[in-house]
């Protein structure tokens, strides 16, 4: 158990810090967790502002802010170029990063809670591929088959299609991997690989039959980055992601109980079937909306919750908000890296998250093998 020197030292800090440490020693990490959520909120805000200020081109944020606020004090009126860089390129990118990062991290937490396993992640077990398939189906067969749907939901069509793709995959995976309330990790991961391969194959067929215009749409969409961020995409994804984020706090107590098993959760008064339905719907919605606007960005849903569990424990009342904040922060940060390290060119953000995430996944696997029924 980690009982670090740093913690000893902070005993001399103000009274509330001493309280937190004493409680933490007694096995109660809720004080620490609440503190961390506040800290993460501040860090998220700071990262958000920093990312708007940094980029390949120079653009003065303060001038734009002053101009927006209608203040006289601005040194000079911002140029149209500055306004476009800040308001139409960097701001939507940061907002989308925050939304998608939060959605991916929270989907990871909910899925891990539901499967009772720290390795469950929408990206790894084929849910993202399913969502992609939904989106590709729409792009390729869209006008001929889904014509009325297009007309009905407009620019929500892509997120909605991705949602149904993700939902179908999640339901299928749950049916395969769970028997009598217990989930087999090996089955889950292997079934996830199979489902991922299957949806990938169908996606491949669709790409094969796509015409030139559709191919251009597919390529543009499938880049898997925040590079294409614009306000239309945000308008399409934000309501769905925000709705999922608003629902999951109500699942916290149930997800806590279900870590002891579905039967134990029922014994503790949780309506298990309803919990599972809502959890699967929110994962599919959040993942689907994310995939629809930013393609597949992997590992956020594994890395973020796992790091947080090491510090504040698995209590979902704190894990969910903390993951949303840290997920958003990490994705904005990764995006900053993606567009600055090879500036003025850009790395796909998925490369950065995979470079960090994949070794991390292996580390969890090796470390926790004995506890995870592998």
């Amino acid at each position: 158990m980690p009982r670090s020197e740093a913690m000893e030292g902070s005993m001399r800090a103000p009274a509330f810090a001493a309280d937190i440490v004493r409680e933490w020693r007694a096995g109660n990490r809720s004080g620490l967790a609440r503190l961390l959520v506040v800290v993460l909120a501040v860090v998220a805000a700071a990262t958000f502002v920093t990312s708007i200020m940094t980029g390949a081109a120079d653009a003065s944020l303060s001038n734009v802010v002053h101009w927006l606020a209608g203040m006289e004090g601005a040194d000079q009126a911002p140029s149209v170029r500055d306004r476009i860089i800040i308001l139409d390129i960097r701001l939507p990118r940061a907002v989308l990063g925050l939304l998608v990062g939060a959605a991916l991290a929270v989907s990871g937490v909910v899925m891990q809670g539901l499967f009772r396993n720290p390795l469950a992640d929408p990206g790894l077990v084929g849910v993202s591929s399913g969502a992609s398939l939904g989106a590709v189906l729409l792009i390729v067969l869209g006008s001929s088959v889904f014509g009325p749907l297009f007309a009905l939901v407009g620019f929500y069509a892509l997120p909605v299609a991705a949602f149904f793709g993700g939902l179908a995959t999640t339901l299928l995976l749950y049916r395969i991997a769970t028997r009598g309330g217990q989930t087999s990790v090996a089955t889950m991961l292997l079934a996830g690989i199979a489902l991922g391969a299957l949806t990938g194959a169908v996606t491949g067929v669709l790409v094969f039959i796509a015409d030139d215009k559709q191919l251009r749409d597919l390529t543009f969409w499938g880049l898997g980055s925040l590079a294409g961020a614009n306000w239309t995409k945000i308008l399409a994804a934000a309501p769905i992601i925000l709705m999922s984020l608003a629902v999951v706090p109500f699942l916290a107590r149930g997800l806590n109980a279900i870590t002891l098993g579905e039967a134990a959760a029922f014994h503790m008064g949780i309506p298990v079937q309803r919990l599972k339905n809502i959890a699967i719907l929110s994962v599919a919605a959040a993942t689907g909306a994310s995939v629809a606007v930013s393609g597949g960005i992997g590992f956020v849903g594994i890395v973020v919750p796992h790091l947080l569990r090491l510090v504040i424990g698995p209590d979902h009342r704190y894990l969910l908000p903390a993951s949303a904040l840290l997920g958003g922060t990490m994705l904005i940060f990764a995006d900053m890296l993606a567009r600055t390290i090879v500036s003025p060119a850009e790395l796909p953000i998925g490369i950065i998250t995979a470079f960090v995430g994949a070794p991390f996944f292996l580390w969890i696997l090796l470390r926790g093998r004995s506890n995870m029924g592998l």
Partner: protein
Amino acid sequence: MIKVSDISVRLAGRQVIHGVSFDAAPSTMTAIVGPNGSGKTTTLKAVSGELSPVSGKVTINGHDLAALRPWQLALKRGVLPQSTIISFPFTVREIVRLGLSASGTVSHSANDRIADDTLEAVDLAGFAGRFYQELSGGEQQRVQLARVLCQISAPVSDGEPRYLLLDEPVSSLDIRHQLTIMRLARQFCERGGGVIAIMHDLNLTAMFADQMVMMRAGRVRASGPPREVLTDETMEAVFGCRMQVNVAPTRDIPFVLPQSVAI
């Protein structure tokens, strides 16, 4: 009172429980015994509401189980499963708190006190800050019992008795802690609650239980006080062992030793 009336349960298309009936009154400890695969755990699952019988019914304090919502059931009975594997790093206190969150109770400080008292009762004082995954099987089982006792901390609530359903509560414990846990269950009964426990140790059962329900092949073969149920005849009929049941001279409690078997 928990009344089990002529229930039959099917699992995976096969009928495993055939017309089981018994009553578990408040202030009494009812032990379900029987050989492996005789339907003890399935019966307990039907009593906890986890499985629905295909016929017959279970009532708890007069309410039909099928009509109660999960949260209502959670206020009337707590359930200790045989073993619980957790893949997330919860501390002992956090696990026990899960039970408190199901009890629908009171203030933060009162909760902390209940958690501490309960941990002490299962002889785990000082374990609150430890990680559940690092404990031994017997310690984990006692943490789970503490969690259940936090959920049902008062044996009587609003004038209604409450119940503990325990699936092999002492199976992985050393002898001292077997006695600790059986005494704890006994105290729960003395304070007005009811206990139904699946037991393998016939001698502990005879010592602590008021009533025994002996099952074989999904049916109740004998039930009543241990002195009437635990006989040479039932040992042979239920367990298929020709064994001699004796009576401890000082305390008038039956006991049976494997040494008495005809090899």
